């Protein structure tokens, strides 16, 4: 409890770090903050071109099908892979100043979350302009899905960021694991393409149900089945608790290791 109060006291630090990250990233470029929107937009244009003219996939408006799952996936993967080094990267600060170390992974994951939300603006624009449209009731479920994904990403990031301080390889190993994970998750394809016997195994992967839910909301315009999300939610909460405990144990030795 004391920990949460302390993190709350340092909320301004979290905000500043996020702001520094978001604003600092495109500093010096002519278009500046606009790149935050341009990046996903150009990505979308490339996907549209590739999958509607070069490789025709079996889905209607495949670029949308892909994009609504890819953006949440990028949130998750950048949180975890980039988050692994988020403490190591700030070692000057960690070595010299006291602050609750949890601030760093929290700020990192939140920053990725904000990037995703900004990309959603592009998604909304495309959904409207392409005439695909939206289901307002389904959209009400969106915040719940985001929170579940956020909890999951934060739990994992807490664990990996703490371990990376002691074992630098984790960062690189994670790059490979997450890439494999992407192909094992329904980012580029739908679960319906899988053979029956694999589907249940696939659902153990918490990202499967989360990505399905995003796709239900944006692409199929239907309310997601909350029951399938139960496993992801429980797993997310368990990982977050484990993450907090592991982090709490390891953080005392951060400075000595760096």
């Amino acid at each position, binding site marked *: 409890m004391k920990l949460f109060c302390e993190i709350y*006291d*340092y*909320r*301004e*630090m979290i*905000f*500043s*770090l996020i*702001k*520094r990250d978001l*604003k*600092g990233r495109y*500093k*010096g470029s002519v278009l500046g903050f606009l790149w935050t929107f341009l990046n996903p937009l150009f990505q979308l244009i490339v996907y549209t071109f590739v999958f509607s003219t070069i490789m025709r996939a079996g889905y209607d408006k495949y670029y949308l099908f892909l994009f609504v799952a890819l953006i949440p996936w990028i949130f998750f993967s950048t949180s975890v892979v980039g988050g692994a080094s988020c403490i190591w990267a700030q070692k*000057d*600060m*960690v*070595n*010299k*100043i*006291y*602050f609750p170390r949890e601030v760093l992974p929290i700020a990192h994951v939140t920053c990725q979350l904000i990037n995703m939300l900004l990309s959603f603006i592009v998604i909304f624009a495309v959904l409207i302009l392409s005439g695909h449209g939206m289901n307002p009731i389904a959209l009400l479920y969106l915040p719940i899905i985001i929170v579940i994904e956020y909890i999951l990403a934060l739990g994992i990031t807490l664990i990996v960021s703490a371990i990376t301080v*002691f*074992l*630098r*390889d984790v960062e690189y*190993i994670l790059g490979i694991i997450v890439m494999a994970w992407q192909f094992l998750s329904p980012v580029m394809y739908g679960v319906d393409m899988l053979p029956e016997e694999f589907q249940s195994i696939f659902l153990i992967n918490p990202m499967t149900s989360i990505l399905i839910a995003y796709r239900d909301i944006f692409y199929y315009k239907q309310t997601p089945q909350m029951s399938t999300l139960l496993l992801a939610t429980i797993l997310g909460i368990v990982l977050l608790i484990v993450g907090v405990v592991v982090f709490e144990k390891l953080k*005392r*030795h951060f*400075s*000595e290791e760096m």
Partner: protein
Amino acid sequence: MKSDNIIEVRDITKCFKVFVDKGNTVKERALFSKRRKYDYKQVLRGINFDVKKGEAIGLIGHNGCGKSTTLKLLTKIIYPDSGNIKITGRVSSLIELGAGFHPDMSGRENIYINASIFGLGRKEIDNKLDDIIAFSELEESINHPVRTYSSGMYMRLAFSVAINVNADVLLIDEILGVGDANFQAKCFNKLREIKAKGTTIVIVSHSLGQIEQICERSIWIHEGVIRVEGTPREVHPVYLDYMGQKREEIAEKEAVRQAEKEVVLPVGNEIIEISKIENVSLDGDKSENAQINTDEIKEDQNKKRWGNGHIRFVDVCILDKEGKKRNVFKTGSDIMIQLSYKVNKVVENDVAMGIGIFRSDGMHCYGTNTLIDKIPDFRLNEDGMVVIKLKNVMLMSGVYVLDVAIEADMSIPIDFYREAAVIEMYSEINDVGLCRIEHEWQYEKN
């Protein structure tokens, strides 16, 4: 915890692993687990102290004694192996300045980032913003990106933020050398102001002067334990005395090393020469060899030593009053100069021997000779030794060189030997100038 204590440190110990070969990757951990050698370095061996609210204390000690580790433990950057530390209230540390600064962002934006890292909320920063900007003296530059700042401006901004954090306990590590003299004075005034408001301050510094200006208590940490604790006035002289002795030891070791090096490699280097002359008498054989070399070099350089050579100094020794060879003295101590000479040809005229002491910047501090001092019947007819006793040498701390000379008829140089020896002075009192003048203060008590 006692009610008036704001910091309580009890029996803290800390041990660091010092890796001989540190492997942080899986491969290294798995394959070379036995090769990952490390030694343990016990930095702190049980430190105890209390700090009362509003008090300022200074931690002193030589490099590696554990004072910075103690400060890091107080900051909770690292944790003790045993013992515990209790601190009440908000702790702010001036260990790292400019934490989290982003070079492309303006000074103003960076104030928010930096202050938030110290744990300030937005409202608090809003309230302090004007103070911080005013204190930093940056004026319009505050809206420019930090990367355009000079290093002085950068540090001023960073210091302004750090010092304007309203903390109950302020921990400071060796950072008061920020900016120009004016800004430093301002920082000191600000520190005093903060202290007057009831903030507790802990300073780590090598500058005893700084500690004396602010702290009412000094703690000397030595080899991981507290050696002396008390008012700066009590602790610092003891500490300086110890450091002086330590320096003597180092100087002696260095001298021996140089002397050994000399025999192997007679280089015409000024500094080496000096130490050579000081030490040639350490060992008979060496002394002779070294002396010959020195003479040759002397002739070459022709600046350091001249004269007709009828009589020559063969050894110049600096001794303390017990007759022990040393080069480092405390201001006010007695110094003996022992001059051995060899007579090659008896000089019939009046002979005089003299000395001169120069500060390292060339300032002539003192000089005299047997004529000035009216030594009756001074003759140098056969090899011998002259000892000059200098009583209560009041030269201030610094490095001095000694010239010695033998002259005939007041003007013919026989052996004029510049920079024959080096004397280093140290002092535990911070008075300034060339030499100390004994004094006392008289004033009317109201």
